[in-house]
């Protein structure tokens, strides 16, 4: 999925950003966040014009449009990895905690950091890394996992942090890495993944 944050942009800027994104290749799912009604309407029209089915939802004080490429949409370009090597699997790792296993909490936290640091061993098979519940702490200021997460983003892994969870822990402005996501993205990701690993 491709995400665009068009908050603070007035028409026609949001449409132009979406166009620029689609010019690089058509993603199967695209998410656009805008903060005004005119932009909602215009981005919706543009996505529909480009052959996407569009869902609209409130996103905090803003709006979010989720476009899903329909059949016959301007030819959908498969994920880059799959293009290079059709053998590549799509593994999604969902981290729903800030510690690994039960018993000693201090040990659990250290183990989870170690787990994240070892994830790059999956190579290209690691497709998406999603943080929910207290797992979102790993993406925020002061997290020991930040350097390796940033490296993973550079290597093309898509990292997402649950927006509702960030809000719950009042961490929205502390997030340092990854895109903010919602349940629909998470469910869509699970559906698209070849396998899902839950921590």
């Amino acid at each position, binding site marked *: 999925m491709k995400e665009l944050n068009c908050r603070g942009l*007035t*028409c*026609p800027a949001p*449409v*132009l950003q979406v166009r620029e994104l689609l010019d690089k290749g058509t993603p199967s799912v695209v998410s656009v966040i805008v903060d*005004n*009604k*005119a*932009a909602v*309407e*215009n*981005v*919706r*029209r*543009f996505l529909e*014009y480009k052959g996407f089915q569009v869902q609209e939802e409130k996103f905090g004080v803003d709006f979010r449009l989720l476009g899903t490429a329909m059949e016959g949409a301007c030819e959908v370009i498969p994920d880059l990895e799959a293009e290079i090597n059709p053998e590549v699997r799509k593994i999604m790792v969902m981290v729903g905690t800030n510690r690994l296993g039960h018993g000693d909490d201090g040990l659990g936290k250290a183990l989870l950091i170690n787990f994240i640091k070892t994830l790059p061993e999956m190579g290209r098979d690691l497709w998406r890394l999603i943080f929910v519940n207290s797992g979102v702490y790993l993406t925020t200021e002061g997290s020991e996992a930040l350097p390796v997460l940033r490296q993973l983003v550079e290597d093309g892994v898509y990292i997402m942090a649950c927006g509702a969870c960030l809000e719950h822990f009042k961490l929205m402005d502390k997030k340092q890495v990854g895109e903010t996501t919602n349940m629909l993205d998470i469910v869509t990701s699970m559906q698209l993944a070849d396998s899902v690993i839950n921590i």
Partner: protein
Amino acid sequence: MTVAAVNQLRQHKLWEKIIVTDEKIVRLTQTVKGAGCAAKLPPGDLDRALCGLDLPVDDNLIVGLERADDAGVYRVSDDLALVQTLDFFPPMVDDPYSFGRIAAANALSDVYAMGGTPKTAMNIVAFPAKTLDIAVLRAVVEGGLFTLRQAGVVLVGGHTVEDDELKYGLSVTGFIHPERILTKKSLKVGDKLLLTKRLGTGIVCTAIKAGMAGETITQQVVESMMTLNREAALAMADYEISACTDITGFGFLGHLAEMVVDSGAGLHINSAAVPLYPEALEWAMMGLIPAGAYNNRTFRGEFVTFAPDVGQEIQDILFDPQTSGGLLIAVSDAEAAALRDDLRARGVQDAAIVGEVVAEPQEKIIVE
């Protein structure tokens, strides 16, 4: 944009004056958030700000704020009244000289729409002196003067303030006979509605800002916005006109809604007959629609009923805020065709009969 590209534009007379600062071409539309009449405060907000104000009373004020007409009219004597109006906005085109011409044509239009003759004007300027070369201001004002000369209007002064964004316009004063004022609110059942310019300038300007409009359409729409409504107004003088307004920021349907409110009549619009820029249809489909169009629909949509076969893009264009749009004239059925032909003969090529005034449903606009 490269200097070579600009030279090409210059050859095509697209930009009459080119401003180059530090080897870079200033694209005026990239320096502002809103564009032209699309930058108007949403009509609902304006109503909230102005309703219930305690206004001074004067018997000689024939058309005042409460009438929400194109311009105010103040009686000086039994055969002379002053018609006064003011309009200014941020640039909707990149060339400062063309912007000046458009702003002036737009400001003068309200006087023509009332059936008056503009006489004097004053400049209103907000200028970002820290970010734009002063030569830009010079070109804007020269453009305004060009249009004033076309209209036979003298510039008597002006006022300039420093601001973050460029804005330009004029306050215009004209003469009118107190018995021959054309207001919005005097529709007669059976009248035909005539529109003198094509619709879609807001959408086309959005496409220009987005860098998606080609030379031909850009030139066409700039030319139309620079065109005075003077010929149309002169033609009207010879016919039986019951009401008139000019189409600007509230869009075609927004201005029609102002006409039907409290008129005791309704309007029937034939959308297929409405002159428009065909390119705007595709851009509307792509979402290159100014925010003002959505505001207009929100504020005035309740007056309008669309037949099921009127496409979304047509609806968008009918709500599209126009900059320096045409006149909308209510003329007797018997004279409508003759006025249209007269307008075309005077060079108002796009003039078309777009609808009629009907008895029922009252205060509604049916678009088919």
